């Protein structure tokens, strides 16, 4: 028996399961940061984490961090290099998997975090940060999104982080983890791999602004184990990232 869990805790667990042992991971903030720690604590003890500010860690920070630049993320790191150094490792092909989020996604896994006119008026978003680099250069990418119709669009207004396109050198979107389910993007179309417990195919279709494949026998997302929840609640004791009010991406 496991205790109750939040949707974001379920997403952290899904993110952690995308990391295989011995992989080099380009870690994002928020849920992927917890997912990396969880993977290290469970099935991927040998994973290495790269942060875009230049930090390389082989174990999670010992104290809660709000940003990757927070002092506890430096303590016990294996190296503190520069941004160009870790991006160079990424470009060289040394990174197996990277996590990115976005405001909008399309069926090819293109992410927009730059600007949109979906609401009628122009809205400026913060921009790429390192996401465009991870999308371009990682061995594969895992996308993390709020699942809402205005975010799931047939075509995004601006491709900040490129998805699948002809002539891609390597990688591309592999998995999309949302507030409703886990989706396989590796074939260049969106297919439900699992729906979170209690989520119906109808609900997913209504929240997705493009055609999406949901087969009859799509399983439910595996719920967090007691050990997984214990880790997450140790790493995020106040539910700052994993309480149900927190935004992803």
């Amino acid at each position, binding site marked *: 028996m496991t205790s109750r869990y939040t949707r974001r805790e379920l997403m952290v667990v899904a993110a952690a399961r995308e990391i295989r042992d011995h992989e080099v991971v380009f870690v994002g903030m928020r849920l992927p940061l917890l997912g990396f720690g969880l993977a290290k604590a469970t099935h991927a003890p040998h994973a290495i984490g790269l942060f875009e500010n230049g930090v390389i860690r082989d174990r999670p920070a010992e104290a809660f961090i709000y*940003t990757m630049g927070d002092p506890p993320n430096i303590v016990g790191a294996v190296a503190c290099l520069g*941004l160009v150094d870790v991006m160079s490792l990424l470009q060289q092909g040394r990174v197996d998997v990277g996590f990115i989020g976005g405001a909008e996604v399309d069926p090819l896994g293109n992410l927009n975090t730059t600007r949109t006119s979906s609401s009628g008026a122009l809205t400026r978003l913060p*921009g790429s940060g390192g996401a465009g680099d991870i999308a371009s*250069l990682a061995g594969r990418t895992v996308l993390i999104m709020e699942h809402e119709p205005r975010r799931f669009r047939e075509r995004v207004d601006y491709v900040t982080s490129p998805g699948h396109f002809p002539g891609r*050198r390597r990688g591309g979107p592999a998995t999309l983890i949302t507030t409703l389910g886990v989706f396989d993007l590796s074939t260049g179309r969106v297919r439900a791999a699992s729906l979170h417990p209690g989520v119906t195919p109808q609900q997913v279709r209504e929240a997705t602004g493009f055609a999406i494949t949901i087969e009859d026998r799509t399983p439910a997302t595996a719920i967090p184990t007691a050990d997984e929840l214990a880790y997450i609640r140790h790493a995020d004791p106040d539910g700052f990232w994993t309480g149900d009010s927190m935004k992803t991406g």
Partner: protein
Amino acid sequence: MKLKRSLREAIAEQVHDGDAIALGLALESGIPFAAVHEIIRQQRRDLTLIGPISDMAFDQMIAAGTVAKVIAAWVGNVAGGSGYGFRRAYEQGQPRRIVMEDHSNFTVGLALKAAAMGLPYLPTFTGIGGDIVRGHPRIRPIGDPFGGPDLLAVGALRPDVAIIHVQRADAQGNAHLWGNLGLTVEAAYAARQTIVICEEVVPEAVIRSDPNRTVIPGFLVSAVVEEPGGALPSSVQGYWRRDFEPFLAYHRMSRTPEGVQSWLREWVLDLPDRAAYLQHMGEANLARLRVSERRPAAEANFAP
């Protein structure tokens, strides 16, 4: 040459209207907020801001009307998301219109690195297939002279001034920095002038005891400013924790033009300098944020 300046003197002498200023280069830590606020107080105009992710520093400068152009990968508020000052300027031209040169973190880094290396550009594969690099003024497709696949060339970017916050420097500007580096080194090497702001000015023997930790040699430095707490509310490894609440408070206040003006008055315009800012924060807050415990690196023996 005597390099030591007060922050007011350094900004007055070395940051001019229309300059391209690189700052916030270590990403979320060591953001030189004291310098940001001094630039706003001195009413510089038409600045170009350069940085990877700027957190709320760029947003404050944009909201104050000091900025004409931003060259960056991300402009917002790391804790809150959107940068409302940036959005108002970009979407509505308030308080003035700004030009945005969008980058990814890597292409900002490569642009500074190219300048730091004295090259016109550096090639990369990043961004291919996306919209950032399409029609970009500083990123163009090039062939590989060795016959490999096509690349993108990222043109060199040379800031007029880089503003760096470090833990310690000597009076000659030789600067020790540890923890997050981000693009600090590339920017300091690329810039025409570099203002080093430090938690403490130390005797040169301290710097020479550990030359591998010198990220900026003093001959590249144009001013040394001792300004403890000058990066707050961002963190400085071994000196200050990140103060989370002011980022959220600014995020809330900056939702409206009136709110951001009121924030700027309270925290920038009505205060003469950083000492007054720290006093306004209050001793209880400073005590909570100041790092008192020790976690020193193991000794490195430099004996010949």
